């Protein structure tokens, strides 16, 4: 599909020579599941919009799979200017290996300057495979993207070690520039049913046989609001001391209609599941109210609540670092405060 690469440039012979000016457009890879295009991949249209307008180029959605063409219009309504569809029965079964090779083939043909992939669990397995097949750079779990005004390189911004420094990463000599971001780091753009755009149907001759085959899939029931979407969060840390402490938090949360979350230490103790961990290696949340109970305020934890509107801390150590990073702090033992708070909430509810 791609023309024979020139070998006269002085780079690793495993790479093909490139002229970065040949590359244009911002691609967003659409992950399709039982319910259509996944929301996290549509969220990537938000940074795509920012970068495409700074580069003065188009946003192209990519749909690869079987029976996926029907979603192209939805992609456009959320912000894609164009959608490339590769709808092929041979792709009816998802395989990271095959999907990645297919996406890479299309990228070799169309030469996008940028590819954004949502860092869902599938995206985290697919993204680096795509990047490597193209011998391109990839920057993981970005929290923001920008454009270097002088060179027009995309700046891929990620929180590195310790969550105290942001690294601005770029790939000045290679294209495409590939970046991933965790779900809910960016907002879903508004849907506009009047938006129109071109849908390009692609074909591919050779699709290798997958070497990995899905033989069974059990959906896990998800009936709770994911913490990334909750308006109120009650969160517990190591300071709760035991799983009973979490039971108390759950009671408070259910009275307030809040979600329950926790620190990494709480997850490590087995008090709550990993998908409720807040922080650099957990989730970034943006509630209106974040109530942190028995959490010390480590940088890696606080990184996950940068966008919380109001932060409340309950901690019995007056020197806990969280007090200088919270709006309202209470120096007390949670065992005394939480039961009293449950009562107060109940009586407040009666007055409403």
């Amino acid at each position, binding site marked *: 599909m791609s023309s024979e690469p020139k070998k006269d440039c002085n780079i*690793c012979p*495993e*790479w093909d020579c490139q002229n970065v000016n040949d590359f244009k457009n911002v691609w967003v890879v659409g992950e399709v599941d039982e319910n259509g295009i996944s929301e996290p991949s549509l969220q990537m249209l938000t940074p795509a919009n920012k970068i495409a307008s700074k580069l003065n180029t188009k946003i192209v959605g990519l749909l690869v799979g079987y029976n996926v063409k029907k979603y192209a219009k939805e992609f456009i309504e959320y912000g894609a200017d164009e959608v490339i569809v590769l709808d092929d029965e041979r792709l009816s079964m998802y*395989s990271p*290996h095959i999907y990645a090779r297919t996406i890479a083939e299309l990228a070799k043909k169309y030469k996008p300057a940028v590819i954004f992939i949502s860092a*869902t*669990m599938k995206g985290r397995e*697919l993204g*680096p495979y795509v990047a*490597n097949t193209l*011998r*391109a*750079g*990839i920057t993981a*779990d970005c929290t923001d993207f920008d454009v270097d005004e002088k060179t027009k390189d995309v700046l891929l911004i990620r929180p*590195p*070690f*310790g969550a*105290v420094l*942001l690294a*601005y*990463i770029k*790939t*000045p000599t290679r294209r495409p520039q590939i970046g991933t971001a965790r779900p809910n780091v960016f907002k879903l753009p508004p849907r506009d049913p009047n938006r129109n755009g071109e849908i390009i149907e692609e074909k591919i001759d050779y699709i290798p046989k*997958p*070497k*990995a*085959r*899905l*033989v069974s899939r059990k*959906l*896990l029931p*998800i009936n709770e609001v994911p913490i990334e979407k909750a308006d*109120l969060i009650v969160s517990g840390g190591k300071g709760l001391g035991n799983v009973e402490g979490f039971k108390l938090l759950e009671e408070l949360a259910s*009275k*307030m*209609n*809040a979600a329950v979350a926790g620190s990494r230490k709480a997850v490590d103790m087995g008090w709550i599941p990993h998908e409720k961990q807040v922080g650099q*290696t957990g989730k970034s949340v943006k*509630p209106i109210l974040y109530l942190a109970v028995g959490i010390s305020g*480590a940088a890696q934890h606080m990184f996950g609540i*940068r966008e919380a*509107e109001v*932060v409340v801390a309950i901690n019995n150590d*007056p020197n806990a670092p969280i*007090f200088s*990073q*919270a*709006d*309202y*702090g*209470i*120096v007390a033992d949670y065992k005394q*405060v939480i039961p*009293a*708070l449950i009562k*107060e909430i109940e009586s*407040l*509810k009666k007055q*409403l």
Partner: protein
Amino acid sequence: MRIVVGMKWVPGTTSVRIDPKTGTLIREGVPSIVNPHDMPAVELALQLKDAYGGEVIALTMSPPPAIRGLEYLIGMGVDRAILVSDRVYAGADTLATSYVLAKAIEKIDKEIGKVDLAIFGQETIDSSTAHIGAQTASWLDWPYIYYAHSVKLIDNNKVLVERVLENAIEDWEVEMPAVIGTHMKALKPRPVRLINKIRYKVEKPIVTWTNNEMKLDPRCTGLKGSPTIVAKTVDVPEVPRKKIVYKPKDGEDAAKWLIKTLLEDEKASKAIIKALKEGGGK
């Protein structure tokens, strides 16, 4: 089964310090450890060996101090270890790191014996890109399966891998050779055993491969083989917070103060009243 397991030697700290002059991380004086998320990968490899026989080879690309990490893994029961180390590998991003690891796996395959599986951890604690597994698979053109919880041999050249995603549990049949990335919560690692430590002292089953042995084109490794560069780093800006701290008389006083304060806070009060009206307290 011959299994290669990846290990990264990382600074083992939760509190990093920043050099106020240069703005860079101070890594000196911070003791290093085996990346904790590699432990389930090592344990999985050892369990497969316990069940089906064969050997487990630990592999790291790193400056020489990582030998201490390899020693630890041999203490757990890993048969031998390979340190791939050369100045021309320094400054590698994940593309260049995975290139060297993939070439090392090919060399093991050719010189030591056929490799059936390469197992990596979910991610590292220092830069946690979670790229290396998929990228190594891509260089080798092997299938890759991530977030593995358990692995069973189903015939001579296939394994059944169970993995846990956000919303599903999946079973995959994967042809070997393959690359597997483990879930960080998959397995509890076994402790180091004295007998293995003695074996380490007596046999020293660790070899170092420099680029004299690896014979890679230096344009494909280290900084030269890395498309990504860190253009700059900046402090994460501090979020402005009110920082009002209250020392209550007792729990009731605390609860009353907090409710009053939150109801006076415009943003918080709206959200709380909305939530209470929507009905909590099922």
